[in-house]
């Protein structure tokens, strides 16, 4: 498994977690809890953005593995 596909895996898992967090933020009743989940969604967004940037660099360096 190449580095790029490993990063891709983590990225996919993070996106899944983010979706669950967003769901919780939507369905929770308390303001305080919702704020925590919203903040968590924001943090994961930042991390996902960084990882996507890194992924495009990796794919540029190893174009033969692109799409794996």
């Amino acid at each position, binding site marked *: 498994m190449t*580095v790029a596909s*490993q*990063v891709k*895996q*983590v990225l996919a*898992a*993070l996106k*899944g*977690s983010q979706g*669950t*967090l967003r769901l*919780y933020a939507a*369905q*929770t*009743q*308390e303001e*305080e*809890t919702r704020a*925590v*989940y919203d*903040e*968590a969604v924001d*943090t*994961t967004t*930042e*991390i996902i953005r*960084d*990882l996507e940037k*890194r992924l495009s*660099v990796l794919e540029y360096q190893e174009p033969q593995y692109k799409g794996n």
Partner: protein
Amino acid sequence: METWVQVLIRSVAIFILLLAAVRFMGKRSIARITPFHAVSYIVIAVLAALVSANALINPVLGFISLGVWVIGTIALEYLALKSKWVHDLIYGKETVLIKHGRVMEQSLLKARLTGEELLRALRAKNAFSLADVEFAVLETTGDISVFMKSDKKPATARDLEIKTAPLTEPQTVILDGNILNEPLASLGLNREWLGTQLEKLGVSLDNVFIAQVDSSGELYVDLFDDSVQNPQPKVKEMLYAGLEKGQADLSAFALQTQDENAKKMYNKNAKKLEDLLKMLKPYLLK
């Protein structure tokens, strides 16, 4: 009129009258009444029995007496609500039995309590050692309330400096296999949502005895069929584990990569995830 007809009519009248009177006298529990209330309840009960069984020579007198006791009790209770003086008069005042860890023998004597009785009451409140008690008071109902020394009190989450997620009361959404619409609506959910959740758990509606939704929107079910292992929600635990795995992976990437910038980026994001996990822990793991 024949006697049995008279007794019948009178009993029915007393029955309805007392039902109304008792409802008017409030929701006080029988175990928590003051001596004055106990006496007035007994008098009312005896009078009612005498009148309805036709044991009095002149039943009108019985009705008058009953009326005085019922109205008097209700009126006094109303006055007690309005005036502190009347309140103290009929309920009495509570007596401090232990202050700063010392037993007030004078108060014990006034309340006609023996040391034995005091110790028994303390034991009932889980205070087996007198040394653990800071303050105890004899309530007007005869109960003894105990305030433990601060180091003997049960530890709370605050004492342990553990952060806990705010929790409100769960709503019961299914009872006996029937969906309750009102609690479901108060959570902002609908029957379709419930249907999807049940499908996710793999149970049918007829098999659910009780289902509750907590404030974070998680469903807990109890099934009629007790041989089936209750499917319990594990989404939060899985979410936490997933984020934890992501954090570990990012740290691993930081170690593997040769690129300085990428290393920095991985480390920064691993740290971010770590902080995030710390923040989410009280909400996701219970």
